């Protein structure tokens, strides 16, 4: 038995080495395109460190296709045009085989034309607004139906919310998400006047009036809930004002899509207990893989560091890429892409993530309540939800479908049965 196993392993290994020899030049280069300076460094530096950790771990396991992995780190400095320039540099000067990177939607839109032109491969780890499908991007973060829609369902069904305040920072992710949610809520029978939408600038700090407006919404006897797509620092002022106004999560619950463990570490959470966040991953998820991941992270970065959802997305994305490259026997973009479809990898919350032909993952949706220690208590976990590039809740997008495997098109109009465009819209 043992003998058999060993022989099989050696054969496989030999085959792997053989293919590696004619596949790619060693070392295999992995591009990391995360801002290390500027406004987004706050979030993206963590992801760069995560990638370096994953690359090191993989090298310790013997690399990929018998080759050592080499991480190429560049700094696009939170400057969106610079993302395009650095992506071109990674693909043409450094000749990387794959890129892991980006956080904001606008940076992704900036990079898209370049990687599509040069046929690169990008793994994008952050929850986003959907309405996009690129042949060259794998979206390992949540699409709206993997975060916003389940959280709204939770509000409707579990908390009995009848009136919604959609508060967001004024940029594309909140705009599109709120658009989808508005349309979804109307479909669920919520009247237009029961939906309050507000947009604030980045880093907004004067929340008193908006919080008062939200409280005043309760005047017609309906239960009010807040769906927050407020981004980054602005959350701190928002939650401080909520706490000062004495709004309990039992009266007006707030569910946030951009607040994770990392953001809460800048805040005293004792007044926020019970407010909610929806993600595909929380540090408090109980599984052996997660415990090991957190331990490795803390050992590398320090005891007080926390893990978050985009880190898990990179974890899954990177491992899937490794497996796909091994399966394809090459790091060639087209070969890897074909091998990616149907790739499975256990996610850190238990269960398995699957890569779908629309370049999105099937992942479970978790809803957590904020606790005093800045962690989340997971109170709801769904089955794996397949990510949907084009939302079903906007008329223009409902007819669109993305299937790169069989249809070979990311924007396929099911009404006219034609491919709208092969490149993505940016």
């Amino acid at each position, binding site marked *: 038995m043992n003998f058999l196993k060993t022989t099989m392993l050696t054969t496989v290994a030999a085959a792997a080495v053989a293919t590696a020899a004619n596949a790619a030049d060693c070392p295999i280069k992995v591009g990391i395109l995360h801002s290390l*300076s500027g*406004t987004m*460094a*706050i979030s993206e*530096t963590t992801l760069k460190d995560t990638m370096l950790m994953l690359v090191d771990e993989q090298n310790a396991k013997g690399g990929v296709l018998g080759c050592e992995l080499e991480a190429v780190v560049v700094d696009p400095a939170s400057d969106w045009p610079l993302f395009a320039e650095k992506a071109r540099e990674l693909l043409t000067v450094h000749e990387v085989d794959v890129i892991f990177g980006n956080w904001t939607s606008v940076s992704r839109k900036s990079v898209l034309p370049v990687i599509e032109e040069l046929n690169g491969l990008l793994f994008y780890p952050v929850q986003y607004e959907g309405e996009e499908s690129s042949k060259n991007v794998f979206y390992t973060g949540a699409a709206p139906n993997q975060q916003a829609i389940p959280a709204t369902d*939770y509000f409707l*069904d*579990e*908390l*009995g919310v009848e009136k919604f305040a959609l508060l967001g920072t*004024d940029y594309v992710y909140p705009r599109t998400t709120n658009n989808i949610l508005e349309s979804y809520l109307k479909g669920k029978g919520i009247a237009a006047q029961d939906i*309050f*939408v*507000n*947009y*604030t*600038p980045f880093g*907004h*700090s*004067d929340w*008193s*009036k*908006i919080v*008062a*407006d939200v*409280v*005043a919404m*309760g*005047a*017609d*006897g*309906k239960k009010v809930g807040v769906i927050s797509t407020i981004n980054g*620092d602005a959350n*701190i*002022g928002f939650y*401080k*004002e909520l*706490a*000062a*106004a*004495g709004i309990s*999560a*039992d*009266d007006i*619950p707030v569910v946030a899509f951009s607040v994770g463990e*990392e*953001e809460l*570490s*800048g*805040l*005293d959470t004792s*007044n926020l207990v*019970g407010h909610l966040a929806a993600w595909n991953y929380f540090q408090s998820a109980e599984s052996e893989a997660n415990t090991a991941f957190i331990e490795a992270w803390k050992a590398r970065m320090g005891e007080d560091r926390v893990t978050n959802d985009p880190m898990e997305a990179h974890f899954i994305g990177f491992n899937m890429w490794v497996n796909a490259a091994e399966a394809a026997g090459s790091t060639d973009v087209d070969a890897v892409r074909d091998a990616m479809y149907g790739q499975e990898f256990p996610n850190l919350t238990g269960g398995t993530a699957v890569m779908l032909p629309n370049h999105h993952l099937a992942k479970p949706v978790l*809803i957590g*309540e904020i606790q005093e220690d800045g962690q989340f*208590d*997971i*109170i*709801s976990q769904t089955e794996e939800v397949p990510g949907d590039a084009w939302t079903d809740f906007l008329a223009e997008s409902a007819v669109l479908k993305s299937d790169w495997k069989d249809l070979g098109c990311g924007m396929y109009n099911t*009404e006219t049965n034609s491919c709208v465009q092969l490149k993505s819209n940016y």
Partner: protein
Amino acid sequence: MRTHVLAALMFLVSAVVTFAQTDSAVGPMQVVLQDHKEAILESSRRTIGPAIDAVVASKLQQARGVLNTWQGKDMWYHQPSGLFYQAQKVEGRTYRLIDFDTGEIVGEADKSDLKQIKPNSGIRAMIATALVRFQLEDPDPSMRAKGLTGIERAPNASLLEPLVASIESETDPDLRARKTRLAILLTISFSDDDPARVAAIEEVSGDLGVDIRGTLNPLVTKETRAFQGDIPDELNVAQTRVPGRDGFTRAAAYQLLVDAEQAPALITDDQVRLSLAEHIDGGQVGGVPIARLGDTEARSRAYAALAAAGKVPPLVSEADIDRTLQSFRFADVYAETSPAVTQAAEAALVRIATRVFFSQTADLALDALSLASIYFLAAIGLAITFGVMGVINMAHGEFIMMGAYTGYVVQQFIPNHTVSILVAVPLAFVVTFAAGVALERLVIRWLYNRPLETLLATFGISIALQQLAKNIFGTQARPLTAPGWLDGALVLNPVISISYIRIAIFVLALIFLGVFLYIMKRTRLGLETRAVTQNPRMAGAMGINPGRVNMLTFGLGSGIAGIAGVAIGLFAKVTSELGSDYIVQSFMTVVVGGVGNIWGTLAGATMIGFLQKGIEWMNPSNTLAAQTYMIIFIIVFIQFRPRGIITLRGRAAGD
């Protein structure tokens, strides 16, 4: 190794114990819980109702304890035995199980065998409602208060009777008042006795509470309905509607009929296109060649042909709509059946609405005042360095940031929030005073005659300091927590409230104003500063050392910025970009107000604060627009009063 063996042994023992328990008769509460095992495990608000009801209906004395445990997320499910227990953590992954019926410890189990039942807040609210009847008569006032909160969150007809019954025996005056008020609210919503409801409504008319409006508004909800023929008399009609009048459009009226399936739906252009595509017949649709269908007129011709052939539903013309609408009557109908109640509620709401409007205006004014005080606080240091000395200091914002970070660092060493703030304020002053003096000595004093270059040099300092802060503290926002006594808000009435921290900032701004006036008008430094600003040579001739005075004045302005930083950090956030958020606004405040005059800065801050809140009020869904329009307004304002709101006259004005 030994511990592992021990743990394994203990686990075995516990398993044996639990199984022993299962074999013997399970307690009555366990039976109830087992009956609803699936609902409890699924833990969804939609299905949990019967389970909670069953626990209450069991009339067991354990019921209250079970509900409390459940609500507190302490109920666990033991997988091997399939029973529910209260569990307490012993250590590590070992939990002690307590039986609900006997209250005894039945054994210990490893976490892997247990599943915590985590009711979400929807379920917790339902449990809270179920607990109310136990709590209303509880000897502990805090329990009774909890019960009342439960009713407030989920008012329920069945609670009216026990609530009214409990008022009599209530000894605590506050709770008694709350109970009476709640009883009124429940009467309005759920009583069958219309005169009593009207009386209750009249009792609360004029009350600003959101809960009152929350109770009254559902009574006056109405729905526009269409009637073929006469409107039935038994309906409580608010008013009849005529399509095309009073904002009730013909389109809305027709859509109403479509929704009620009493009229054919309008056919959209999209549907026309799709129907045409379905009926392509040998390169033609309805006799029109396909190539010519890229034209609206041709399309309608083709569609009309198809409709005539009966292949598609005909288009609905304006005349059709008119004809349909004429055969219907429309009216707004109350959901509430009693006209007396709806009338009373409408009248009460009108009275409340007027009061709410005034209160909201007052609340907005308070917000504006608070924003003005924040701008004033951020700008007051600048009023000294820029207003009095004429030095453009683009690094002013970074001094604010340094103050905020000082507050954060102090809190790392002094955990008591009150003490740490008391230490942080003077320390922030010292730190930024020193930084200001250094900046003045090293850079600014060489550039007194080159203001534009001062701007550039201090901008260089600004980006260097910002990056330095990032290098030291990281880019993540840092917590600066206000002491407990600044938590919460001052509530004047249910609409007007303002958080204590904003009041504190307002007071701080007033203190600064006083300090500034005192230093400038009553101290030697102030006198010397004014002298040096007006005429440095003459001041020098009088024995004043202009260099020293400039240094001290600049230090003072910077120090005040540092204190402002602590205050702003308390209310907003502490990041390296904190300062740059305020710098442009601060300059605007000083320029708009009138350079060289503290009252001008005050006027400028007030104007900007009120203006911004005013614009926000007009356009509540877009705060960014408010900021844009405010800046444009300021630019235009400065064209007409280039010297600001309050201008200096005579010699002091200089030129």
